[in-house]
């Protein structure tokens, strides 16, 4: 890249060829106003407010669309420029209502600021301003154009940031511009609403008060608010947020642009999800069961009760009589202190966060040997591949903002998206999706690898695969012929061949798996098959590696990092490696593996565990076997539940502790990249609630062990050196980019091609439909997003998704009631047709309190099967 020298306002500046004048100015702290230009959108040069004067150029030029060249002499503030800008403003204001006193953008409006600066104090026209009348009786021409977005067209200055963003960045189609000239209108397409998962961003990017959101408008003046840095923890993307508060209440959260992580966008879940914090359902006081009822009590009473039980049970059963189940949305600080308390104060290693698994999986040791557990890919790395193969994931709803990076790669380097899924997903709007018969992933992936090998589309030298290995692989997998696999998976032979060739041709492919793989009854085998495919196509070379196995649970990576597993300590060290961590509290920790979820539950049945802490988790609605979890938890002598709300699990607890949310304490989260990012305390704890780290610090103190933490920050400062290797690092000195904790093991290409096998799942043959659950529109998980009024405006009711054909066969239409049942339970709910759903699948969004799909699940059965009956 060649260097150029230019002069702006008399200052000599060195820049790079290809930069626009605006880029150069901004980089050097020279202010040029802009409306239509935005760093995250393609330049259109439509508003002309960014005019500058260039020596020897007869006319003023728009700086956003003019390249800086060597020797250029630019003035950004000359009299001519100022006069021209005033002219532009006059034009913009011709029809602008100037209703600043009643406009919600006031105080943070780029237009208001520019007018203020360039001082136009009167209009030279007398004609009435164009009005888009919505209500004759009022001057508020506010028109709802979506569940959350309100439009006032009078104020629009036609910069088209909103429509360009929806089209370019989100690849959505629910906002457009209609008509032309001064009567141009911003509207969703006929008969529709703007309701895409990223819709709230248009409000943030609109430079005037033309688009506002229902959630925030007219609630508080922005200049009265305080801004706090926080991190979204609804999904593992870890977008950076600013929380806006007034008198200890959060009024909104907006993007705190971090180009490395969120690229300046957040999804609606991150934007409106915060409302769960102030929801009236929040627990206000600790509760204790007296005479069969949960009654409010003081923290002292509840702590005394816990300590008393803890001591007696420990005496009776030893420390292993105490166990803990933790949710995946707590902070790293919570995990660290819970782990420290349970392991070093109580003496038990029985702790686990993996509550959604039915059967014992390996601890991932095999995958660890292959080096495909965790990842060292960063979100940024998702911009460079030219092919994404998404397997078993609704990336759009599981990792909404990471999904946008794939679209960016598509925009910038023509990357292709291929999706191989058991149920249709929203990202198919931007790629090709193949819907396969459930549980045929291993065959499918292996078949693709076989096609590539047989068509000799792989490079033997680069992949290091010799003929003997290839021969063996072909022999070992000779069941997976294209004919067999096409029959089994329902994907045509032509499609399989096409797909295989596409993968083989890609210069750099990344294979991304998500929810369906992470909950797959043979997860390890699916990933092993992918390892083979990635190895054959030479996508495991160098760093970063080409396999990204994403998990659900916003801070699941934090769970790993802080040892929320019976065999792991902080920074994912095995319990028998504790000496490699220099921390005093680890000295007395047992180096014997504790019990995982499955064993904890079994030990409860056998009365070997009598006290369990359930922190930030609601197994009664989330464990994949409702009957079993209820009967098991009620066998406990003492169940301690700490949560935000009176969850179904809390209702059967012996004591309930009101938990503070991450907005009410300081701390950190770890996103899927392994990036630890800190957040500030935004508001005071709601009512008497306390953060988990504090609860376990208090409990330790009552057992005469002083942890001495006064804030989440103190906890962070204790573990910061451990995770960063930097003894001086603390909460105050964490860089904006966070701390990236490298993933466990490097990918092991030399392991060579791995044996794969298929094993039919254990399932109930009596029922004909496969049950698959996922996230509803604008929801993640069960407890928090459903307590956001805004998110509930997008969807608040559960449904049973069926293909139109299946529904019709049962004489059901959209909106009819259907009973979904099997030997374990039943659900009655309305039917909704889902385009592209297979005829043998029942899809249920599992977020809403009315129904809980785990009543249909049984831990002995790998694939949940159900029957449908018209009600």
């Amino acid at each position: 890249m060649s260097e150029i020298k230019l002069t702006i306002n008399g200052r000599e500046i060195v820049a790079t060829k290809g930069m626009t004048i605006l880029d150069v100015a901004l980089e050097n702290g020279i202010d040029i106003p802009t409306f239509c230009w935005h760093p995250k959108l393609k330049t259109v040069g439509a508003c002309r407010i960014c005019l500058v004067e260039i020596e020897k150029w007869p006319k003023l030029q728009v700086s956003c669309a003019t390249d800086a060249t060597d020797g250029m002499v630019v003035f950004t503030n000359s009299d001519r420029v100022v006069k021209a800008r005033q002219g532009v403003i006059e034009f913009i204001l011709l029809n602008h209502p100037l209703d600043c006193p009643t406009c919600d953008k006031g105080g943070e409006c780029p237009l208001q600021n520019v007018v203020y600066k360039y001082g136009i104090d009167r209009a030279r026209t007398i004609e009435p301003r164009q009005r888009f009348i919505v209500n004759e009786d009022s001057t508020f021409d506010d028109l709802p154009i979506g569940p959350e977005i309100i439009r006032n067209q009078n104020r629009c200055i036609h910069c088209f940031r909103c429509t360009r963003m929806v089209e370019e960045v989100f690849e959505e189609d629910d906002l457009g511009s209609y008509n032309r000239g001064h009567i141009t209108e911003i509207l969703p397409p006929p008969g529709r609403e703007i309701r895409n998962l990223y819709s709230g961003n248009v409000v943030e990017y609109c430079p005037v008060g033309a688009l506002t959101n229902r959630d925030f408008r007219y609630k508080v003046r922005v200049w009265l608010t305080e801004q706090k840095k926080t991190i979204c923890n609804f999904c593992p993307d870890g977008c950076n947020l600013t929380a806006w508060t007034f008198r200890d209440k959060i009024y909104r959260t907006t993007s705190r642009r971090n180009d490395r992580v969120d690229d300046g966008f957040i999804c609606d879940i991150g934007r409106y999800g915060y409302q769960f914090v102030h929801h009236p359902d929040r627990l206000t006081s600790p509760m204790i069961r007296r005479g069969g009822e949960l009654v409010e009590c003081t923290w002292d009473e509840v702590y005394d009760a816990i300590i008393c039980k803890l001591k007696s049970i420990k005496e009776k059963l030893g420390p292993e009589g105490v166990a803990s189940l933790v949710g995946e949305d707590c902070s790293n600080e919570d995990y660290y202190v819970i782990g420290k308390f349970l392991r070093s104060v109580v003496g038990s290693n029985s702790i686990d966060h993996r509550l959604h698994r039915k059967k014992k999986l390996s601890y991932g040791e095999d995958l660890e040997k292959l080096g495909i557990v965790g990842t060292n890919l960063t979100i940024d790395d998702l911009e460079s591949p030219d092919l994404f193969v998404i397997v078993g994931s609704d990336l759009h709803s599981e990792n909404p903002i990471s999904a946008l990076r794939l679209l960016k790669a598509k925009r910038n380097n023509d990357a292709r998206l291929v999706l191989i899924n058991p149920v249709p997903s929203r990202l198919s709007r931007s790629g090709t999706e193949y819907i396969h018969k459930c549980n045929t992933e291993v065959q499918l992936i292996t078949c693709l690898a076989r096609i590539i090998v047989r068509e000799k589309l792989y490079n033997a030298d680069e992949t290091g695969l010799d003929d003997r290995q290839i021969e063996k692989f072909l022999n070992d997998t000779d069941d997976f012929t294209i004919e067999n696999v096409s029959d089994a998976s329902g994907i045509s032979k032509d499609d399989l061949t096409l797909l295989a060739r596409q993968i083989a041709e890609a210069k750099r492919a990344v294979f991304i798996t998500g929810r369906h793989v992470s909950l797959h009854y043979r997860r390890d085998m699916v990933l092993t098959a992918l390892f083979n495919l990635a190895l054959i196509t030479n996508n495991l070379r160098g760093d970063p590696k080409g396999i990204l196995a994403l998990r659900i649970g916003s801070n699941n990576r934090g769970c790993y990092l802080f040892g929320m597993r019976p065999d792991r300590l902080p920074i994912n060290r095995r319990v028998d490696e504790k000496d490699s961590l220099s921390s005093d509290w680890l000295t007395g920790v047992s180096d014997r593996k504790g019990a995982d979820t499955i064993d904890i539950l079994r030990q409860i049945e056998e009365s070997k565990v009598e006290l369990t802490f359930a922190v930030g988790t609601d197994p009664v609605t989330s464990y994949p076997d409702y009957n079993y979890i209820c009967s098991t938890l009620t066998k406990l002598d003492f169940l301690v539940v700490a949560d935000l709300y009176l969850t179904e699990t809390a209702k059967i607890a012996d004591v309930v502790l009101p938990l503070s949310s991450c907005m009410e304490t300081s701390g950190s989260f770890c996103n899927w990249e392994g990036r630890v990012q800190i957040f500030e305390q935004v508001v005071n704890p709601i009512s008497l609630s306390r953060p988990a780290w504090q609860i376990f610090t208090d409990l330790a103190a009552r057992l005469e062990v002083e942890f001495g933490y006064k804030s989440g920050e103190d906890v962070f400062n204790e573990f910061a050196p451990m995770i960063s290797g930097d003894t001086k690092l603390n909460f105050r000195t964490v860089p904006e980019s966070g701390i990236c904790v490298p993933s466990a093991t490097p990918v092991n290409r030399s392991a060579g091609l791995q044996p794969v096998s298929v094993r039919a799942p254990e399932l109930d043959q009596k029922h004909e439909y496969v049950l698959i659950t996922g996230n509803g529109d604008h929801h993640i998980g069960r407890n928090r997003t459903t307590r956001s009024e805004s998110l509930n405006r997008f969807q608040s009711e559960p449904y049973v998704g069926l293909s139109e054909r299946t529904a019709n066969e049962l004489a059901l239409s959209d909106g009819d009631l259907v009973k979904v049942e099997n030997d374990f339970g039943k659900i009655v709910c309305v039917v909704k047709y889902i385009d592209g759903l297979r005829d043998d699948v029942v899809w249920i969004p599992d977020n809403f309190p009315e129904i809980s799909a785990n009543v249909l699940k049984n831990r002995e059965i790998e694939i949940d099967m159900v029957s449908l009956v018209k009600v």
Partner: protein
Amino acid sequence: MILNDETVKKIKATVPIYPQRRSCILPALTLAYWQEGHLNDDIYREISDILDLKTVDVASAASFYTMFPKAPVGKYYIQVCHNISCALLGADSLIDYLAQKLGVKLGETTEDGLFTVVTVECLGSCTTAPVMQINNDYYENLTREKVDQILEDLRKQG
């Protein structure tokens, strides 16, 4: 379906002509207009299905071109120019006269379904102002008398 097989066929035939799919929108809208005499939301949806484009793009392009009527109009669609040259030569009073004579307001259709009157911007025929366009024909150097005659002739044709 509103669009008939022939229109659909013609719309599909535009696809190979342009390097970009989106360029087919205008010919498609025109073909649909020729068939139906106006455009509407259902037509946009049909066109976007035929061309595999987003409805938002089709609807937004159609809305840009005011010369496509967006609701049913009379058999004779009268577009009177009210831009500067025509205005100087009495377009305004001519428009009033027309509306009064037909007994409709601007944008309305006569009860017999024959005439709809709307105003448009410059028709590019300033030298023969005032001008109006009825369906595909221009009528120039208008006077009240000429207008009477034109309407009468058209009525006769029915």
